[in-house]
């Protein structure tokens, strides 16, 4: 086959996706499950032979202890990304890279344990270090799933605060005017587990599963969900509202246990230590002259951005199109400066030390807190009941959607 024939074939295969929608599916779970199965099988097959070999090893003497050249340590996985995204600069997904999504979603995998789904229209900088992975979200929304392990931390930083976790699932959404910190709002929603939010000028807060907190223009607070049982008309709507009521009651009970655990002497001491470490770190960081310079430069970019926005607001729609590149440049510059601010914290030994202390104190607190919660039987029961309830709710929701669809078709 000639080159032209291969280019024709390339377009042909891509058309199957672009026109017919035959797109690649996410097979991560299946592949990992099959890999795990293979490994188990391998162990089973080799087990009897290994037992026999053990005798040989004992007789072989100490030389078998000698370190072998061919045995290599496990490598810490570098950042990886998939889906619809672009990378500013040299297009390499690595620490310091600015990742942007436009119309589609992208997935990031950091350190092999933090899975981040970037929603369309989001921008994030990959920061952090081994076992303390971190992203800086400058706009948009991310959903994070973090595998729980004692010595690993994951954080999402925004201009309004930092969300840190040991193991959980949560979303962070940054809304409001681009590059205008005062007009921005950060919404954190916890799906599973516990997260800690540290923000400058406010004391650190803990959010639990099912809770939602807002930082920025509005004061931090939990989201409310009103089950309107009196407004329910159909039996399904009534069942849904009843479930919501029950869910709220269970969550209130769980909240009570969580509050009690937070009062526990050991947990309270760990939390206090974590808050003190975070305050010390942020104060030192803000007082550093280089950090101040970068902050100033970033504020200048923000001012430029606002000027451009104000000018364009008065202009025509076509002007927006023309200035798209200008906007993109400013956004990238802003993210780059933020990246430098993040790197600074790791480059200056005193700051890096304080940052590590903050992270360690946070891990100690969250681990202790989770341990105490796990030891509470009633808390575990409530979790199971809430899970069951969530299953019913989703079933009712499916039926309601189906009912509405049937109704729409009948109306047509």
């Amino acid at each position, binding site marked *: 086959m000639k080159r032209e024939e291969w280019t024709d*074939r390339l377009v*042909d295969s891509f058309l199957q996706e672009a026109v017919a929608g035959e797109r690649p599916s996410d097979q991560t779970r299946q*592949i990992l499950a099959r890999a795990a199965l293979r490994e188990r099988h391998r162990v089973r097959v080799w087990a009897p032979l290994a037992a026999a070999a053990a005798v040989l090893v004992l007789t072989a003497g100490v030389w078998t202890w000698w370190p072998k050249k061919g045995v*290599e340590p496990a490598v810490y*996985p570098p950042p990886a990304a998939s889906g619809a995204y672009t990378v500013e600069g040299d297009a390499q997904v690595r620490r310091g890279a600015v990742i942007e999504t436009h119309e589609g979603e992208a997935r990031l995998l950091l350190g*092999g344990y933090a899975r981040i789904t970037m929603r369309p229209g989001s921008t994030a900088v990959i920061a952090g270090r081994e076992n303390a992975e971190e992203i800086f979200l400058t706009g948009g929304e991310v959903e994070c799933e973090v595998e729980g392990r004692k010595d690993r931390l994951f954080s999402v930083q925004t201009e309004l605060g930092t969300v840190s976790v040991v193991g959980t699932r949560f979303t962070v959404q940054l809304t409001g005017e681009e590059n205008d910190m005062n007009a921005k709002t950060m919404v954190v929603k916890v799906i599973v587990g516990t997260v800690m939010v540290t923000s400058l000028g406010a004391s650190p807060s803990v959010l639990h599963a099912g809770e939602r907190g807002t930082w920025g223009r509005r004061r931090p607070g939990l989201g409310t969900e009103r089950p309107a049982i009196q407004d329910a008309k159909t039996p399904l709507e009534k069942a849904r509202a009843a479930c919501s009521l029950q869910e709220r009651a269970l969550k209130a009970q769980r909240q009570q246990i969580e509050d009690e655990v937070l009062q526990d002497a050991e947990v309270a001491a760990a939390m206090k230590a974590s808050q003190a470490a975070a305050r010390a770190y942020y104060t030192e960081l803000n007082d550093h002259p280089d950090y101040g310079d970068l902050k100033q430069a970033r504020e200048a970019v923000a001012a430029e951005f606002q000027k451009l926005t104000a000018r364009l607001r008065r202009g025509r729609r076509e002007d927006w199109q023309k200035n798209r590149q200008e906007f993109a440049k400013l956004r990238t510059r802003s993210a780059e400066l933020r990246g430098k601010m993040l790197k600074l914290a790791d480059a200056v030994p005193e700051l890096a030390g304080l940052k590590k202390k903050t992270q360690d104190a946070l891990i100690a607190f969250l681990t202790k807190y989770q341990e105490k919660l796990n030891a509470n039987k009633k808390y575990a029961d409530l979790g199971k009941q809430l899970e069951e309830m969530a299953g019913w709710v989703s079933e009712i929701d499916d039926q309601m959607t189906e009912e509405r669809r049937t109704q729409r078709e009948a109306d047509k």
Partner: protein
Amino acid sequence: MGEDGRPPRAARVDHGTLEMLVTEHQAELYRYVKYLGADHALAEDLVQETFLATFKGASPPSLTDVPRRGAWLRGIARHLLLRHWEREVRNPVTLDSRALERAEQVWTDTFPGGEDGVLYVEALRLCVEQMPERSREMLDFRYSQRKSRSEMAAAFSMSEHGVKSALQRIRARLWECVQARLKLEGA
């Protein structure tokens, strides 16, 4: 550099590395094997088999160099595809390893940075929207409705050969359009 003058290879693929490789390269591999001629089901199978072949049994050339990592995985996928074709008794495919190397060259020229092709698909979608009505209709018959060449010939009052040539011309125009669009976006 290693003792043999080559860049050092990474350690064997463990669970964490496997997940990183899957996340980063599964879409690219799926599109690649489909480009080589696999259908959707076979492409998904081959993607799985490629990653499983790397697990515990192979050392990637580098974990930080995305294009090299991609080329290594594509090599494994190509090998698996050739083996699959060799086993196919009913529909033997005549492509050999040399033809597949040429295919690889076109792929690396199109995606020099190790991209997974998603931006290409997006650009292609936009280019299709810009095509004349009749071309779009033909693309819809061929790709969405999966009509055969003879069915298309009847619908468009053309010969089968005419349909083949027309589709080739459309694809050539789309190729140029996508190249231009990606160049523009890159700038």
